[in-house]
């Protein structure tokens, strides 16, 4: 597909760079107010359908709750400024269904659509977005394919990429002394890609750590051979590159076999929920109470996160704000800011604003974030949590134990700081 959108202003007017730089230093702020649209503003969110599966339903509920809170807060604020703003949601699962839902949302006035909680859904929404000329914010799929060969010019990713999660896990575990890594992967392409990426990360960035083996398992299939391979590998860390429910099955099998290695898994949205952490501990009381990576943590207590998490808990009767809720909330916030600061709700205005290197977002992670120009990925730090072996309160079921990259590093450039994780431009095949 041909990208007919204008590029960010810094690229389009490169010849005027010095003047532009001066303007960036002293932005005539009146221009901010002049661009505020007067028509009603609608952001559309596609959330998963509840199916009865506790892990999938935890994601569906969290995402829906994030949309509800974002609607409440940003409609409230827009009303102060004399603007009618709302968030409307559709429940849909599967590639065709989410596209149909997105079309309905646009028919109801949405100028941005957020959603996509699997590679298939996000890829379908991204392709639809480019075709329809509607900005799409990916809030649930970390698949690197979406940031590489399947990237689309009208898609931006709030959900961290697989490369970011894997680099963070490598950073944490290698520094903690885990040197021999074994990988249990699925038989699907996404899982194989994750394996290649994490192995490349270990080879190129984390000297001293090595892969001591990998094995593929089929969904619901026999795990005997995989468990035996893990036991014989001598690994001190086992990384499960599997869907959340398969991670639970393998955890239980490894625990039963008496495996002593630390075990963690890829943080799919389902695997970043309290429901998963609880199930993990129940499936494997010892191995399932390990460390997990997450895009957001309800107990994060700095950078204003205390206030955001507290408001969410109060809004939803004590429920912790989990990663899907955070991602949807931020998607709405960024769409809101694009309308208010970007000068319009047409696709060009919204994307030009969101993609501009001078546009900085506050996503309650304590550092101004921007989208990477080469693949549309939101730069951000990630978190490491430890699952409690005994805690029963859902809020304190996990303890926040790490942040990567660490954001308090005065004297370093914040963009370079955040680009310590994920694929840089040289590793990107995306041509936006």
């Amino acid at each position: 597909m041909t990208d007919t959108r204008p590029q960010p202003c810094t690229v389009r007017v490169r010849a005027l760079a010095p003047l532009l730089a001066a303007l960036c230093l002293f932005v005539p702020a009146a221009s901010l107010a002049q661009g505020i649209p007067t028509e009603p503003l609608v952001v559309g969110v596609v959330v998963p359908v509840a199916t009865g599966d506790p892990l999938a339903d935890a994601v569906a509920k969290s995402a829906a709750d994030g949309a509800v809170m974002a609607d409440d807060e940003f409609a409230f604020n827009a009303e102060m400024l004399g603007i009618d703003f709302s968030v409307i949601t559709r429940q849909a699962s599967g590639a065709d269904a989410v596209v149909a839902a997105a079309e309905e949302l646009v028919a109801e006035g949405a100028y941005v659509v957020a959603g996509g909680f699997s590679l298939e859904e996000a890829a379908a929404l991204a392709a639809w977005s480019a075709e329809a000329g509607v900005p799409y914010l990916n809030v649930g799929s970390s698949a690197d394919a979406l940031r590489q060969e399947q990237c689309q010019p009208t898609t931006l990713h709030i959900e961290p990429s697989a490369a970011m999660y894997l680099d963070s896990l490598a950073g944490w575990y290698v520094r903690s002394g885990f040197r021999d890594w074994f990988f249990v992967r699925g038989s699907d392409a996404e899982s194989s890609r994750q394996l290649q990426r994490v192995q490349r990360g270990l080879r190129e960035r984390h000297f001293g750590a090595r892969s001591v083996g990998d094995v593929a398992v089929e969904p619901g299939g026999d795990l005997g051979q995989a468990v035996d391979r893990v036991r014989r590998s001598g690994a001190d860390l086992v990384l499960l590159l599997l869907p959340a429910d398969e991670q639970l099955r393998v955890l239980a099998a490894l625990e039963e076999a008496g495996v002593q290695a630390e075990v963690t898994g890829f943080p799919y949205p389902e695997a970043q929920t309290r429901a998963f952490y609880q199930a993990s501990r129940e499936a494997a009381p010892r191995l399932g109470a390990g460390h997990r990576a997450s895009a957001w943590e309800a107990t994060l207590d700095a950078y204003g996160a205390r206030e955001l998490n507290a408001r969410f808990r109060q809004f939803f009767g004590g429920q912790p704000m989990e990663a899907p809720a955070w991602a949807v909330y931020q998607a709405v916030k960024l769409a809101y800011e694009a309308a208010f600061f970007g000068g319009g709700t047409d696709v060009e205005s919204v994307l030009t604003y969101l993609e501009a290197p001078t546009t900085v977002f506050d996503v309650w992670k304590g550092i101004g974030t921007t989208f990477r120009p080469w693949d549309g990925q939101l730069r951000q730090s990630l978190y490491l949590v430890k699952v409690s072996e005994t805690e029963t309160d859902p809020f304190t079921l996990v303890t926040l134990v790490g942040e990567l990259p660490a954001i308090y590093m005065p004297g370093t450039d914040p963009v370079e700081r955040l680009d310590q994780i994920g694929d840089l431009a040289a590793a990107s095949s995306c041509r936006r």
Partner: protein
Amino acid sequence: MRTRRASNWRVAAVALATALTAGAALAQDAYRLYVANEYSADITVIDTATNEVIKTLTISGRPGEVRPRGMAVSPDGRTIYVSVSDFNPQIETPEDKIVAIDVETSEIVGEFRAGGNPERVAVSPDGTQIWAALEAIAQGAGYDIATGEQLANFRVGVEAEGVAVSPDGKWVYITAEATHTVTVVDRENLEVVKHFLVGNRPRVVEFSNDGTRAYVSAEIGGTISVVDTSTHTVIQTINLGLDSRPVEIAVDPTSDRIYVAGGGTSAVYVIDTSTNEIVATIREQMGRRPWGIAITPDGSTVYTADGLSDSVSVIDTECLCVVDRIEAGRGAHSAEIGVIPDGQ
């Protein structure tokens, strides 16, 4: 009361600076610096003539549970008003209040209920009202000091933070972090007249000495919005850098300068408001994460509350250099300067 303490740390520049500014030092004798310590739940009181800690006002015997943050000093210097809350922003507790403390007796002489995590507070120039930003409930509220009654409360943006009253007493500006807004309250008619957008995650607002401008720091945006107070519109945005994380602002009463505490870079940015250009950035020997900042009325000395080093950095405004460091309580958050009460 804690034992009076001050650091012995001095740099060679102190002697020189002291000699050069001997006259100013005499004038400083009339001021007290107050530093709110978020984690030790107390207020450090410093004599600006000597830069010695002269007392510590205890806000609560439960440090780590009760947190003082924003402060304001009455025009006569007799009373400081302190925003007090707990660490759970959403649950209203008895700690959510503004306390008035007689600075000489250290007694709490008044309390104003302020449900919803009051973060910062301002006192009107005539000393009759205080105004607070209530962070958890997205409101700004005014209180009559004499009666203790709440005069009014207004809806503002989400995560209300900073508050200031204009020098002529006409306007109250209240910032909101999550929604990048400033709400303008007409103080006489007790009504909201405007909301407007500023930089990303606005923290603190301060008015210029003549009241024609207001300056709003934006922590994540790394900017200072310059506001024309006749129209309540942003007329210029000064970029301090993405990682500067500006918070409190001190307006020099004697010149066109404002001083901005850059928490992210452990720096103080000096801005000439006649050009809105950064004329100096003070980094050397600064304490870590300066969050609060205040300037003496004679414009000679700036103090920063350094949250990660539990200290106060003392800056001479002639050399624009750090000349002293004073030990504060844990989690130094904000800084205010007041005159010494008459007859004390």
